[in-house]
């Protein structure tokens, strides 16, 4: 009794709201609190809030993880990430744990191997708290399509947390984990980060291994962190980046993050930022940030990236095309849901008809359409060419400016059910999709508050392998 009260007291005194990786590491090293004390403090929040927020769909066994991390501190072999509580998006495989991508088709699938990012984090003895909710197969921008039901925004439970990494964002925002991993195919890390006042990093395509990430659109998918500070995003990114023999699209080690951190000149794609449909307060918040940066001595210039506005259209051709191909693996025979029909064909159809949610089916049908004979050239091929042109435009712009600045989201977090037609939902990713199309890195930084009380955001985009520029300017924006 006496002891448990003491532990309880020590949990209460841990300030999770302002916790960072460095602060936690210093305190754990000094013995100010133990790994168990830190984890218990997060668990208390989860116990109190998760039933309503639904950020986590499962909590893992923590005892062995906690003991291992604590042992590292006692042996003096702890790294900065040892004992740090992580929420893991449900599409990242951890051996022996269910990884369902919040989809009916994989609801009972147990991962048979560790993804590369998990392997790397296990080496540092981080704590995997649990599986974070997400949109069905990562398809959605609000976490409303999850087979486990929607996740609520901890800052206003009548609003969505964004998506598809909405559970990851909500877990960190409700102080249910210090940091989280998500995946970003068209904005799925940055948009929920923006909606929940977090930092969200989409690294350069090919700098973080996709091995063990449940595939959606393989030329666009990338894993990255959601954190409270830019510094934490950098620490997690540094821990998970690197060439991986198991992912042939990862880059050589000497290329990754090889560009200097110096930022002097900031480009603003004027016509893109000023387009119709962007919330006026998002615009004024953006202008205010620009002005502050100018006062700090940064050079701000207008840039022209004329084809950037076509990114979302390109995305909604290539992403469904790749997804329809990737998701053909769900056959009800080797793993995942299996619904018996009359014969092979009928079994496939019933399995996929029942296992995939509506949004997933819509995208598979669309992808099948744009890849089908007669439409392939007009859609898939044309989109590939426009993608190449957009990438060219980005490369040219980065010859002149160090980074590009835009808002992350065109409006703050919306209410549940507010966006019922697909196009209006898709438009919430208008500013985030271009970075995936060009494969360049981008980060969302919380900045400003809307009059409705929800957080606003700024997105920095840099050239391939220039993550360090995102971090240096991101830290500057954090302190404005």
């Amino acid at each position, binding site marked *: 009794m006496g002891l448990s009260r003491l532990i309880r007291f020590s949990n209460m005194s841990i300030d999770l709201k302002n916790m960072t990786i460095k602060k936690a590491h210093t305190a754990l090293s000094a013995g100010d609190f133990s790994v168990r004390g830190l984890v218990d403090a997060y668990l208390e929040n989860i116990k109190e809030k998760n039933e309503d927020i639904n950020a986590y769909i499962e909590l893992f066994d923590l005892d062995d993880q906690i003991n291992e991390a604590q042992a590292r501190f006692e042996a003096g072999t702890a790294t900065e990430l040892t004992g740090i509580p992580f929420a893991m998006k449900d599409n990242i495989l951890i051996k022996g744990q269910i990884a369902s991508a919040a989809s009916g088709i994989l609801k009972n699938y147990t991962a048979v191997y560790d993804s590369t990012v998990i392997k790397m984090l296990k080496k540092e003895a981080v704590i995997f708290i649990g599986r974070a909710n997400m949109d069905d197969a990562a398809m959605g921008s609000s976490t409303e399509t999850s087979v486990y039901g929607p996740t609520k925004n901890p800052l206003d439970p009548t609003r969505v947390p964004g998506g598809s990494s909405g559970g990851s964002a909500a877990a960190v925002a409700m102080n249910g984990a210090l940091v989280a991993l998500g995946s970003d195919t068209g904005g799925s890390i940055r948009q929920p980060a923006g909606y929940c006042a977090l930092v969200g990093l989409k690294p350069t395509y090919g700098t973080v291994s996709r091995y063990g990430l449940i595939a959606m659109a393989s030329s666009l998918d990338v894993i990255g962190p959601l954190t409270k500070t830019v510094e934490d995003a950098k620490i997690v990114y540094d821990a998970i980046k690197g060439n991986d023999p198991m992912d042939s699209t990862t880059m050589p080690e000497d290329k990754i993050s090889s560009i200097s951190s110096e930022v002097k000149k900031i480009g603003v794609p004027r016509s893109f930022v000023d387009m119709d449909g962007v919330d006026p307060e998002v615009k004024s918040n953006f202008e205010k940030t620009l002005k502050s940066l100018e006062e700090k001595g940064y050079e701000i210039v207008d840039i022209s990236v004329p084809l950037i506005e076509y990114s979302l259209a390109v995305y909604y051709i290539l992403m469904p095309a790749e997804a*329809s191909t990737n998701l053909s693996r769900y056959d009800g025979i080797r793993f995942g849901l299996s619904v018996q029909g009359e014969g092979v064909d009928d079994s496939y159809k019933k399995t996929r008809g029942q296992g995939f949610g509506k949004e997933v089916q819509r995208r598979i049908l669309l992808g099948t*359409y744009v890849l089908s004979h007669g439409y392939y050239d007009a859609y898939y091929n044309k989109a590939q060419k426009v993608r190449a042109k957009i990438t060219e435009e980005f490369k040219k712009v980065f010859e002149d400016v160090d980074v590009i600045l835009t808002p992350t989201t065109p409006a703050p977090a919306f209410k549940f059910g507010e966006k019922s037609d697909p196009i209006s939902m898709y438009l919430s990713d208008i500013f985030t999709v271009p970075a995936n199309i060009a494969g360049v890195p981008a980060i969302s930084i919380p900045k400003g508050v809307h009059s409705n009380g929800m957080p606003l955001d700024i997105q920095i985009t840099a050239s391939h392998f220039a993550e360090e520029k995102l971090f240096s300017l991101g830290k500057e924006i954090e302190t404005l």
Partner: protein
Amino acid sequence: MSISNDEVKKLGDLSRISVTDDQVEEFKGDLDAILAYVDQIQSVDVGDVEVEYLIKNVVREDENPSQPGEFTKDILKEAPDTQDGFIKVNKIL
């Protein structure tokens, strides 16, 4: 350009997804709207841009093979129906 009901059914067949008659109407409306939106790329002049594919050999040397059966048990555990170390499927012919 508008998609027909038959085309939606055909897409369901091609992608092995059962689509009920009610769903056909809904998907048709959604797909029409999405295609109308993405059709804006038709107006982009792409000139003679070449789509670059980076082609390199990423196949590792064939050495240190995993032991036969090393992963079999774990993998088969995920299959809905197995027998004697094989995955069972419906009769195909």
